[in-house]
């Protein structure tokens, strides 16, 4: 039926609307192409850049391929920086991001469940405070959190980033929305009447049904933890503790092309810096590629529907 009416309305509008529709289509096509190029050119360029020497990077077509030797040389110079610092940074990033992700899930999913499907006195208050805190940008609280962590003497410890990362009100909110809209209360009540314990109701009934929202919270938490710069920058003083994002800025400081004073200390060439940029986002890009089906179909929107 949809197709029929569509065809009908199209035919009716053909005489007057044909010209304007053609210009409309051209406009739409143009906008799409321009923005697709805008979003994708820097990334494509980055892939090519990692295979080039510095001379090739400056001298040749931006979208020409360098050589495998070029890529290997860049890799070696990157790995050679501060005798393998990049491996340490990647390891740190993975540790901080994954540890915080696990804690986030352990904390947020039950909390979302409690807020959505149980009754307790502080429930409303907790919900309202969560919404307000969600609006507070997390960088705004970094300095006070630094002072707080300083009081407990945890500065420089991995916990100084993992614990604040684990506080993820957005995840709680997502879980709350999911549990309150997608889990039928009757189902839980039935399990209770059948003698299932309160914990059993959560673990055996609600949790298995909540797999999509667990994946979603995990995704957002991981990406945010991995990409966070300000908090580890403030909390972790020594290079051996940097996550990759902070490490990148050390590399930048050692790149003579951007920082002429860096000439003496083991310099990093531009293509090696490009490679470092690519390496720093590779895990997130991989996670993106795997999650693209549920991300791009707009499930994110559906799950936060009011």
């Amino acid at each position, binding site marked *: 039926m949809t197709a029929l*009416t*569509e065809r009908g309305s199209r035919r009716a*509008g053909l005489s007057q*609307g044909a010209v304007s529709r053609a210009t409309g289509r051209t406009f739409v096509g143009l906008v799409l192409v321009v*923005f697709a190029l805008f*979003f994708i*050119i*820097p990334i494509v*360029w980055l892939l090519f850049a990692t295979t080039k020497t510095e001379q090739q990077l400056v001298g040749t077509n931006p*979208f020409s391929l360098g050589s495998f030797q070029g890529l290997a040389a860049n890799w070696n110079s990157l790995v050679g920086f501060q005798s393998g610092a990049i491996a340490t940074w990647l390891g740190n990033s993975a540790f901080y991001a994954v540890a915080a992700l696990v804690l986030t899930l*352990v904390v947020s999913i*039950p*909390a979302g*469940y*409690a807020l959505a499907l*149980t009754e*307790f*006195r*502080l*429930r409303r208050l*907790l919900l309202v*405070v969560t919404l307000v*805190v969600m*609006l*507070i*940008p997390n960088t*705004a*609280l970094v*300095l*006070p959190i*630094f002072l*707080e962590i300083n009081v407990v003497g945890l500065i420089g410890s991995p916990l100084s980033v993992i614990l*604040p990362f684990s*506080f993820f*009100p957005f995840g*709680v909110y997502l879980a709350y929305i999911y549990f309150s809209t997608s889990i039928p209360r009757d189902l839980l009540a039935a399990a*209770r009447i059948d003698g299932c314990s*309160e914990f059993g109701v*959560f673990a055996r009934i609600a949790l298995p049904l909540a797999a999509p929202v667990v994946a979603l919270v995990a995704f957002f938490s991981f990406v945010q933890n991995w*990409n966070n*710069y*300000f908090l580890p920058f403030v909390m972790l003083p020594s290079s051996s503790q940097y996550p990759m*994002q902070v490490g*990148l800025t050390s590399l*930048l*400081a050692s790149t003579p092309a*951007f920082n002429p004073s860096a000439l003496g200390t083991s310099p990093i060439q*531009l293509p090696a810096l490009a490679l470092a*940029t690519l390496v*720093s986002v590779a895990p*997130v*890009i991989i996670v*993106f590629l795997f999650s693209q089906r549920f*991300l*791009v179909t*707009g499930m*994110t*929107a*559906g799950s936060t*529907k009011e």
Partner: protein
Amino acid sequence: MDTRSSNLKSSALSVEQPVGAGTTRPVLRQALRRKNHLDANHGKMGYAFASLYTLLLVAFGIVPTLYAIFLAFTSSSGSFAGVANFVQIFQDYRFLPDVGHVAAFLAIWLVGLVIFVVLLALIVHGIRARWLSGTARFLFYIPGALAGASSVMLWLFVLDPAVSPVSFLLRAMGLQTLVQTISPQHLPIVFAVIAFWTGAGGWIVIMYGALNNISTEIMEAARIDGANAVQIAFSIQLPMMRKWIAYMGIMSLAAGTQLFVEPQLLSQASNAVVGNDYSLNQLAYLYAFQQNNFNGSAAISIVLLVAALALSAVFVARGGLFERD
């Protein structure tokens, strides 16, 4: 579309049955006792499940906020200082220029974000070919993987005419070196472009989802009445996206006032052509870690927070975020 209609059906079927019509008294009493018992368990469980989160919420949400407020109104010795810290930061020669920088960036970015995200979401939603619409969304979304330092690093290359993939564009605008590209008067635009590049894709996907929630019957009716795509966009789709646009505005505003990593890296890469006190958040950082003035630093954080919340209120009011449909 199929799932939506089946949802409608199931909700139509699950109309509540009236209860208690034929219940006898003993059964009722028994059921009540049982219910009370369950509720008690239920409540305990609620506390238990929410306890860990509450702990983190207090430690990393509430206490830091209160601590910042406390610091902002006390002196370094801990005695009440009234508004002295605020007076001090307002009089700092860097404060007003920084407010200007952040405001200029926010204005350009928010306007650009709203216009282009809505336009692209409408266009992508209007594409009939599924693969094309999916590919477009994916392409737009991918840069979201490069947030923070990584995206700034990539854009350092893109903005440097010597190596840029779009050096012809930069040269056409009369820019020959990186230092020219990132000269102070260009920076708000540069930061807006970087932020748009990383963030827009996610919002386009969210807006696309919102557009999918608009019932096809309404769109169909408008089309039969002879409305064209532009008319449908302005009189049906835009009003229905209002809440989402407001939500995007609030979230982006809150994040945008906190500009830090972008100017920080540009400052490093330009040999301090861009100052390391370009944004308010950088100024707060300098206060805390160079001048050891945590009270002044907290005062800046509070100013930022209040500004972000106040501006958010505008979006909440204009976007009707707390109205029920």
